[in-house]
């Protein structure tokens, strides 16, 4: 099924539905019902409010209203030192939170003109991928819950515990590690971590196989997701959709491979997964494959972990030279980047623009939700997978 055919079909279905609903509309006065989804709502990952206007069963327009969790990070970053920003920034995408620190630290290192030693880069990459696994396994289970399958999410939570335990044993925090430092890492890995990590990766792969049969192979899941919420390639590019959302629309774009990054991805052999359909099923499918791929990356990097220090030699007091740096990485939710401007001042960013993936991912909602049935709104929002801290910063 090509993406274009499905969009036409949706349009025709909408028109036919309009004609058929005319009589019901008159009798039940269902025209122009305005529905508030949120801000407290089980279907949205946090406090997102979406106002939809319904015409019977179908959405006429939708308007997401973010900002219920706006914490003003960009302003707060301006009054903190580089090292202090990581505590703030952990809390943007709180499920894969190490991943938020990394692009900022890389930008800071570019401004400081220091390079972290190879061991630090390897460990950063491994923890980055662990953050991705922690984040996306939750999605894999949670999409089931949004659709009514209440069991897979428990398996998701159970299996991601192992990953969170690993992150905790290395960094001290399950959710907000605050482990990255300008020039390297806070600590080295504890003893026995490598073996435990490999075991956990095998467990995650088993979990992915389970999800493949339990959800992807389920006919009802397929009926609910295939052809729902199709995003054509050009629209995805226009809105800046990134991560699995873009790859599910056929865009072959992965910053781990395509951007020149000091982290260790190029030292592992892995594949970028894309899907031509661009519907909700594709987005789920891509994320599942990416989770498996992440486990393979972690194992390869664990095998090739170089020895050495984890922190570069940095002078005690440092005035950051003037400059601007833009670093973005392939975070679990999409492309996250920091545009850090330094004015040569006493060790804090002058301006720190945080480009978060969910902001762009949700900005497509007004376009995407037009003409969609009410139950499908939940499916689409679940498949886009946003996290409120990521939208609102």
């Amino acid at each position, binding site marked *: 099924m090509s993406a274009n055919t499905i969009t036409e079909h949706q349009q025709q279905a909408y028109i036919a539905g309009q004609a058929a609903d005319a009589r019901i509309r008159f009798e039940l006065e269902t025209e122009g*019902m305005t529905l508030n989804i949120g801000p407290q709502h*089980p279907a949205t990952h946090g406090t997102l409010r979406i106002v939809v206007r319904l015409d019977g069963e179908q959405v006429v327009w939708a308007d997401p209203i973010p900002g219920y969790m706006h914490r003003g990070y960009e302003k707060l970053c301006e009054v903190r030192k580089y090292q202090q920003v990581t505590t703030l920034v952990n809390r943007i995408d709180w499920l894969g939170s190490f991943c938020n620190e990394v692009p900022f630290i890389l930008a800071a290192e570019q401004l400081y003109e220091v390079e972290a030693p190879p061991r630090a880069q390897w460990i950063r990459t491994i923890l980055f991928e662990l953050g991705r696994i922690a984040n996306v396994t939750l999605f894999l289970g949670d999409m089931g819950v*949004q659709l*009514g399958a209440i069991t897979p999410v428990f398996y998701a939570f159970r299996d991601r515990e192992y990953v969170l335990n690993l992150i905790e044993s290395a960094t001290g925090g399950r959710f907000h590690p605050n482990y990255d430092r300008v020039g390297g890492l806070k600590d080295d890995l504890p003893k026995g971590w490598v073996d435990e990590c490999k075991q956990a990766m095998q467990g995650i792969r088993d979990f992915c196989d389970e999800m493949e049969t339990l959800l992807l192979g*389920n006919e*009802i*899941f397929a009926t609910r997701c295939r052809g729902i919420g199709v995003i054509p390639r050009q629209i995805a590019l226009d809105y800046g959709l990134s991560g699995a959302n873009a790859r599910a629309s056929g865009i072959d774009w992965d910053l781990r491979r395509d951007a020149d990054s000091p982290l260790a991805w190029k030292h592992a052999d892995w594949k970028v997964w894309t899907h031509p359909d661009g519907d909700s099923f594709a987005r789920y499918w891509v994320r599942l494959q990416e989770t498996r791929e992440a486990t393979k990356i972690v194992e390869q990097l664990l095998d090739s972990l170089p020895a050495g220090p984890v922190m570069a030699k940095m002078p005690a007091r440092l005035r950051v030279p003037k400059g601007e740096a833009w670093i973005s990485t392939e975070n679990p939710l999409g492309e996250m980047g920091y545009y850090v401007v330094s004015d040569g001042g006493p060790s804090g960013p002058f301006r720190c623009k945080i480009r978060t993936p969910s902001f762009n991912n949700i900005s497509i909602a007004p376009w995407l939700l037009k003409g969609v*049935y*009410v139950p499908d709104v*939940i499916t689409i929002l679940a498949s886009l997978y946003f996290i409120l801290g990521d939208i609102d910063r």
Partner: protein
Amino acid sequence: MNEVAALNYGIETAIKMGVILAVIPVGAMVLGYVFLFKMMAHMQSRLGPMEAGPHGVLQVIAEGVKFLQKEDLMPDGADRWIFKMAPVVAIASTFLIYAVIPAGPDLVISNLDVGIFYALAVSSLSVLGILMAGWASANKYSLLGALRAAGQLIAYELPLVLAVVGVVIQAETMSLSGIVEAQAHGSIFGFSGIGNPFVLTQGVGFLIFLVAAQAELTQAPFDMPVAESELVSGYMTEYSGFRFLLFFGIAEPATAFGLAAIAATLFLGGWYVPGIGDGLTANIVGPAVLGAKIMLVAFLIFWFRFTYPRLREDQLQTFAWKWLIPISLVNITVTAILKVAL
């Protein structure tokens, strides 16, 4: 003589009513605990309630008490009488089903000749209760949810009934006790060692009945009217406290128990196992046997519920009208032909 007969009748009726009133809550609680709390928990790799009583057996009672002590709200524009009567109607239809289920050769409240016909007719009364609830809530979303639920229930009544027709053709009687007898003493193509449990000869009918029962109970994958409360509020929203408990905590598991009992009676042989005979032993062991079969069917129902995501309303209707009904019609035709031919 008349007075004695009247007194006997009175005592008998009182006993029977007492039995129903005892069985239904107990059945609902057992089902609720075993399947909704424990089985669901273990399938989801967790423990479930463990605090109230050993392994949480008293949790159902705690839940009941919890609901009882909640505030009894009623929306302003609600139609008071209909609002109050709606859960009662829904529960009443459940209670009425139990009147015809035989638990032993003599253990049946009312041995109607048209037993199964009566049971199916009465079980569809719950639709009325739902519509009353949706309408009386004075809430557009409740009304829409109730209409959706009503549409679903009516759509799935048909496969339910058609699946049973095949059984009736084979058993040559509509009385549930008669159907149990037919299974006990029947034979499959001449082999009569295990009788003729209709699950073997009416396998298709059994599956259709199970699926339709799932929809009748508005359980996943057919729980869009209820889970719609994610998005739009379902027909139960405006209910709180004990009224909500009537809908959600008693009507649902009790209906599940009742439908499972009917399925066990129609397809699995009811209270009969080979060797049980007809006399006192059967009357004592029969209920236990029936209970075990009910648990088996309920296990299937709830297992299905925990595993599958839910169908969208239009997909649900498509499934009923375009798939289940034609298949069940074919089933009836084949049964009738084979019955006459063999």
